[in-house]
């Protein structure tokens, strides 16, 4: 008869694990942890302690964080501090992983390891907002340099627009995707889906490649811009696809392909939309509305 874990012991063990996520753990649940079938889902009472790389279900009480029990309620400061529990080295490591996706390396399983953070997604989004707005402004200036009529304008409203678009993408799409995947898993609890925070995290880090891309877009050659956007989309999209494919492939073929296709299409829309709006070629720049009325009307009278 195996011992039952009390919640207090689980909390201590979870804290130990959160300090060292790579530590080996001993699973005390009744079901066989190595099996990937749905058999393990029946034991709702047995607390599964194995938090290492495992496809199966997660602790019911901490759905949002996927196994890492948050300290305190959502109104305490410590709750949010648990989302920022990363070091410089870890953040750089995750950024590197988002730029170099290797097949077989699931970003969430390999780099996040049950320690998703909000630092990376938030500051990558902020940096991307400013890099897109500033680079767009610079590219407009460079493309209009020879034009004697053109007068340089800072176009500061672009920052607001970029911020709205990018933050909406980085938060609403993961919410939608996570909700959809959780709904598809439904009551079966076959393959453990990703927690909400992990989804937001992987989307945030996948946007990193667009920062150097947007800076390079200043160079005013159209073929170069389209090449860059293609490269960035391939890299960024493959990070997302490699992460989400193992979760959806057990669904029906149609749904799996549709889900992955939607992810890719939305990502493409963001990239192309940013390029079209912020990096317009000379022919498309809207001429500023003249503040003084044209003088020819005076001659008509």
């Amino acid at each position: 008869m195996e011992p039952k874990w009390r919640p207090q012991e689980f909390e201590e063990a979870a804290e130990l694990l959160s300090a060292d996520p790579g530590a080996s753990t001993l699973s005390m649940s009744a079901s066989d942890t190595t099996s990937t079938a749905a058999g393990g889902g029946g034991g709702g009472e047995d607390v599964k302690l194995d938090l290492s790389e495992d496809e199966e279900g997660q602790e019911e009480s901490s759905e949002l964080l996927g196994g890492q029990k948050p300290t305190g309620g959502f109104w305490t400061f410590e709750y949010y501090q648990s989302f920022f529990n990363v070091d410089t080295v870890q953040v750089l490591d995750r950024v590197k992983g988002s730029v170099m996706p290797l097949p077989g390396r699931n970003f969430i399983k390999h780099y996040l390891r049950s320690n998703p953070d909000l630092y990376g997604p938030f500051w990558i989004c902020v940096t991307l907002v400013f890099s897109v707005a500033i680079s767009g402004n610079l590219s407009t200036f460079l493309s209009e340099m020879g034009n004697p009529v053109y007068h340089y304008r800072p176009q500061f409203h672009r920052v607001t627009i970029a911020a709205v678009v990018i933050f909406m993408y980085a938060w609403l799409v993961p919410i939608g995707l996570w909700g959809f995947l959780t709904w598809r898993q439904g009551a079966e609890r076959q393959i453990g889906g990703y927690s909400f925070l992990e989804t937001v995290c992987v989307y945030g880090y996948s946007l990193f490649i667009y920062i150097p891309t947007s800076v390079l877009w200043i160079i005013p050659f159209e073929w170069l811009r389209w090449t860059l956007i293609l490269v960035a989309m391939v890299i960024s999209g493959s990070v997302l696809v490699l992460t989400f494919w193992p979760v959806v492939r057990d669904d029906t073929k149609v749904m799996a392909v549709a889900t992955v296709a939607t992810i890719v299409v939305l990502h493409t829309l963001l990239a192309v939309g940013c390029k079209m709006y912020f990096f317009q070629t000379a022919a498309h720049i809207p001429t500023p509305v003249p503040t003084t009325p044209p003088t020819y009307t005076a001659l008509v009278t």
Partner: protein
Amino acid sequence: MADEASRPFAGLSEVSIPEDVPVEGDISVPVGPSRRDDEFSTLDEPVKETVLRDLRAVGTKFVHVLYPKRSSALLRDWDLWGPLLLCVTLALLLQGGAADSDDQGGPQFAEVFVIVWFGSIIITLNSKLLGGTISFFQSLCVLGYCIMPLTVAMVVCRIVLIGGSGTVSFAVRLVVVTASFGWSTFASTAFLADSQPPNRKALVVYPVFLFYFVIGWMILTFSPSQ
């Protein structure tokens, strides 16, 4: 309980005070020089003195920003007058640019305010969430005061722009803004770095760098109306 109470005063039971000896003395507390945290003494001073004292405090902090060294003066006696003054000055100087009413122009007054204050708040929250030991208002104080080199650069830029807005003026402005941006980042890092855990210093410094970079960008791209 009686002997517990009298144990510290055990020896006093033998002392007897004759009733005809008057007990006299002076119980008044000597009033020292009025200290800032002694509220009662500052109520009577003339207004000029109060204002001058605060101005002197603000001025001392400006000097500390000019020569940043690891002093705790900025942190210990924080105040937000200096940041407010600098923010208003910067926002006012950024007005009058090319066609303000047009949405293609530079930042509006409110946008500068929002960027400076919300930017500082977000950076402070970020450093606290990462485990920093600095308090909320101390961090706001440091970040606000370190905008001073950039405000000075803005004044210099406007003076340079009076002379003309050609390539030479742009080069001069670029040098001035870059130097002051570096100075601001270095000064604020000197004050904030000690309060962070060592393996997360870069995570805290990067948002500060981004913050001053954006402000520097706003200053550099200020173009006068024609």
